């Protein structure tokens, strides 16, 4: 007897039970780096490390992609230092990474080579090791290119693609793996030829992909849309002057059924919507994203009738100058949204207490260019890196490559320390993920030497998972 074969009736009961379980979980489970999956173990106190997935640069150091570990605990004698660098071979167009739900492994992708590097971060959180490399992503997925987001689901990883092996354009799919690295399924984004049951609510069904986030208690999953290999790999200035290339950007976001993995509604969202950040509070049924080219904050929200809608709710800087908003980060209380603009290197803080009326209340130039942010769960610390894509980064002296650590006192950012990734011969600093001893029941080595009475050492807490 197949335990999992369900009738329509008992499947409905199970879905109610699942929804209830997710709802209960949402009350207790949060993640650090407020962009993380709610399925994941979290850090609520001081993080010990930031892992920086770094692009190799030609003629710099060993020229290859690497996972750089930086000690960020002010109590550590190595605070502010690079304490490990693990090169993986090749320039793979290192981009994003994500932990498995148990947070034992960090999956990191190469948008060019399509390799997925799985790092063991639990055996020694201060010194990750390369556990496994997946190098047949394109083949097993049926032609998906550009593994981008690695998003933890229950026992699985959802990998978003950016492109395909047929034309290197933007039509693509999500690819689902088990935590152990076994391929499970490919979920193609809907196109006009095959909407896969989705409602085309506007004029666009481009089939593009980029980021993915979930609101488990609403059984909802959301994806955004960027561009294909040809554009994300090419020189940015050349692309801006190529009218054909500029037509190849995504203009959609999609609401999916989280459980069935089926697309349900396609929203028009012109100008390449990128990162998606969903609200954390249990009654906040909405997610933000920003469009890179048209410089707007968009809100995807569930209306009073239970229908999901999308609406542009604010401009970012002067859209006519294409400031290029890239990474965003929502505060854990859902009241603030950090928006980074690449071209002017600014971090911008928006008050999103009223999600329909975001107001920019603060901005600071972090560097000549700026991409990623990771903020701590309490919002008191924010880390920034510089690189967007190898061939999109600024050229010459303006190609600053850094990791910068700031504290946020609610009104301004204060620089604590920075690491110059060029001076350290590391490469181009891209995405950050937090690590901590406490996640794995370990004590910080510099604290274990102290008396037992001081062994309230780790204020890092491991939260219960949804299951």
């Amino acid at each position, binding site marked *: 007897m197949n335990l999992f074969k369900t009738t329509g009736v008992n499947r409905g009961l199970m879905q109610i039970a699942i929804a209830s379980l997710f709802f209960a979980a949402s009350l207790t489970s949060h993640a650090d780096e407020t962009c993380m999956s709610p399925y994941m173990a979290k850090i609520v106190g001081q993080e010990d490390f930031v892992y920086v997935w770094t692009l190799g640069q030609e003629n710099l150091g060993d020229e290859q992609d690497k996972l750089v570990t930086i000690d960020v605990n002010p109590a550590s004698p190595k605070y502010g230092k690079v304490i490990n660098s693990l090169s993986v071979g*090749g320039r793979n167009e290192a981009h994003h990474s994500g932990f498995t739900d148990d947070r034992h492994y960090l999956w990191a992708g190469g948008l060019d080579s399509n390799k997925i590097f799985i790092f063991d971060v639990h055996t020694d959180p201060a010194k990750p090791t390369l556990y496994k490399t997946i190098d047949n992503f394109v083949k097993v997925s049926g032609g998906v290119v550009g593994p981008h987001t690695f998003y933890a689901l229950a026992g699985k990883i959802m990998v978003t693609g950016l492109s395909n092996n047929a034309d290197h354009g933007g039509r693509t799919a999500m690819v689902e793996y088990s935590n152990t690295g076994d391929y499970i399924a490919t979920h193609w984004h809907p196109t006009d030829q095959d909407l896969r049951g989705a409602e085309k609510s506007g004029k666009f*069904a481009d089939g593009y992909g980029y980021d993915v986030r979930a609101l488990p208690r609403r059984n909802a999953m959301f994806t955004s849309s960027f561009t294909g290999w040809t554009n994300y790999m090419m020189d940015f200035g050349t692309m801006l002057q190529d009218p054909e290339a500029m037509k190849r950007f995504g203009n959609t976001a999609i609401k999916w059924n989280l459980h069935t993995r089926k697309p349900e509604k396609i929203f028009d969202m012109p100008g390449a919507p990128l990162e998606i950040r969903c609200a954390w509070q249990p009654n906040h049924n909405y997610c933000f994203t920003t469009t890179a080219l048209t410089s707007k904050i968009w809100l995807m929200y569930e209306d009073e009738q239970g229908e999901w809608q999308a609406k542009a709710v604010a401009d970012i800087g002067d859209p006519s100058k294409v400031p290029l908003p890239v990474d965003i980060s929502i505060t854990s209380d859902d009241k603030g949204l950090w928006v980074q603009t690449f071209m002017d290197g600014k971090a911008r803080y928006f008050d999103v207490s009223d999600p329909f009326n975001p107001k920019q209340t603060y901005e600071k130039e972090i560097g000549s260019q700026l991409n990623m942010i990771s903020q701590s769960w309490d919002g008191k610390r924010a880390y920034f890196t510089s690189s967007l894509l190898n061939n999109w980064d600024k050229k010459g002296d303006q190609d600053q490559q850094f990791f910068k650590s700031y504290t946020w006192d609610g009104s301004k950012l204060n620089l604590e320390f920075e690491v110059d990734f060029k001076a350290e011969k590391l490469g181009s600093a891209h995405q950050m993920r937090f690590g901590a001893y406490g996640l794995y029941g370990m004590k910080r080595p510099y604290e274990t030497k102290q008396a037992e009475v001081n062994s309230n050492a780790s204020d890092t807490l491991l939260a219960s998972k949804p299951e």
Partner: protein
Amino acid sequence: MALSASLILGLELAPTWAGEQTKKEPNTEIRLAPGDDKTSYENTDYETNSLSLEYRTGKAAGLYEIATSPQLGLPLVSISTNNRVDRAKIQLGRKLFFDRRLSRNKTMSCAMCHIPEQGFSNNELQRAIGFEGRNLKRNAPTILNVAYYQGLFADARESNLEQQVWSPLLAPNEMNNPSIGYVIDTIVSSSDYSGLFENAFGTPVSMQNIGDALAQYQRSLISGNSRFDQWFYGKEESALNTQEIEGFNLFVGKAKCAACHQIGRDYALFTDNKLHNTGIGYENSMLKPSQYVSVQIAPGVVTQVARSRVDSVGIPPENDLGRYEISLDPKDRWKFRTSSLRNIALTAPYMHNGQFSELEEVIEFYNRGGVAHELLSPLITPLILSKDEVKALSAFLRSLTGNNVEMLVSDAFAVTIGDSD
């Protein structure tokens, strides 16, 4: 019965889509355009018309028959090398052409730039992009009817396809293979090639037979019997409409196109296989660019971005002096080979650098007399064509699409794309 957490999780672990990877039925209709259609993207009323990659399937064609049978409007291909047409060699070349493993980091095949449904060219870029996204300075040309070129590349620097294939395989900004041996080793270590070279050539993989195989596939992509051919050579009066016939008369008359894009009594290659200076290369090398760049940021939305802002994220375009770069003769500055116009409706954007998106822009360029300078070809003079005459010429050019292109594209769709396993 109470639902246990494990049961719920079990359901989560084994939903209906688990293992989903359904193979779709082959396409019965082939769209000769990008599956990611951007027609009218410049307008606010743009609407997507996208195809699903799952349906990008096809049916193998008789390429040997195509390579060895006459087509209306085209001569049989004459092969001056020892690489005689052979079924197994064509099939092997076809497999190599779509194999992404034949590049340094296993991401670029020949077909990533010569995309079948995009006229075996690339409609989505002005100039091609290669290894690690590196810039190329020229548009990816179609390989349909490439068999008829006497000189290959826009500067005609290579003399036959067997040799030509090694340029992109080894170019640092194209497929970036570090050596000939690296390519051979890649093939030898791929189990799906086991015995294929021995079967086709009677010898193991070598530099020579890799070139021979790829050349054989490309020479099989012959596409004639267009509506123009049916009208002109087949004497089917209804094959062209009035506007297209007017365009033909302009093509061979007032517009002087046929001076270089030649039409013969028995066949038409639409190229004289010579090199000319139209002024477009001179313009790009010598004239100052505008201070603002028009950038389309969404359907129907264009903004002006300061040149300095664009330059901050871009590398300067590589200069292109055309044939001069080969001959080092100053008279050859900005000379480029005449491209065939067959299947021109499928191969936008146009010119050696993909500068023009539409055929009408190309015609208007020649209508202006190209770009005046001392090396401009004497064949290029202002044409004084009316708007209707421009439209008629454009209509005629759109009649040059071969009647077997759908079949060739479907054949390409039937190939398993080579990726690492």
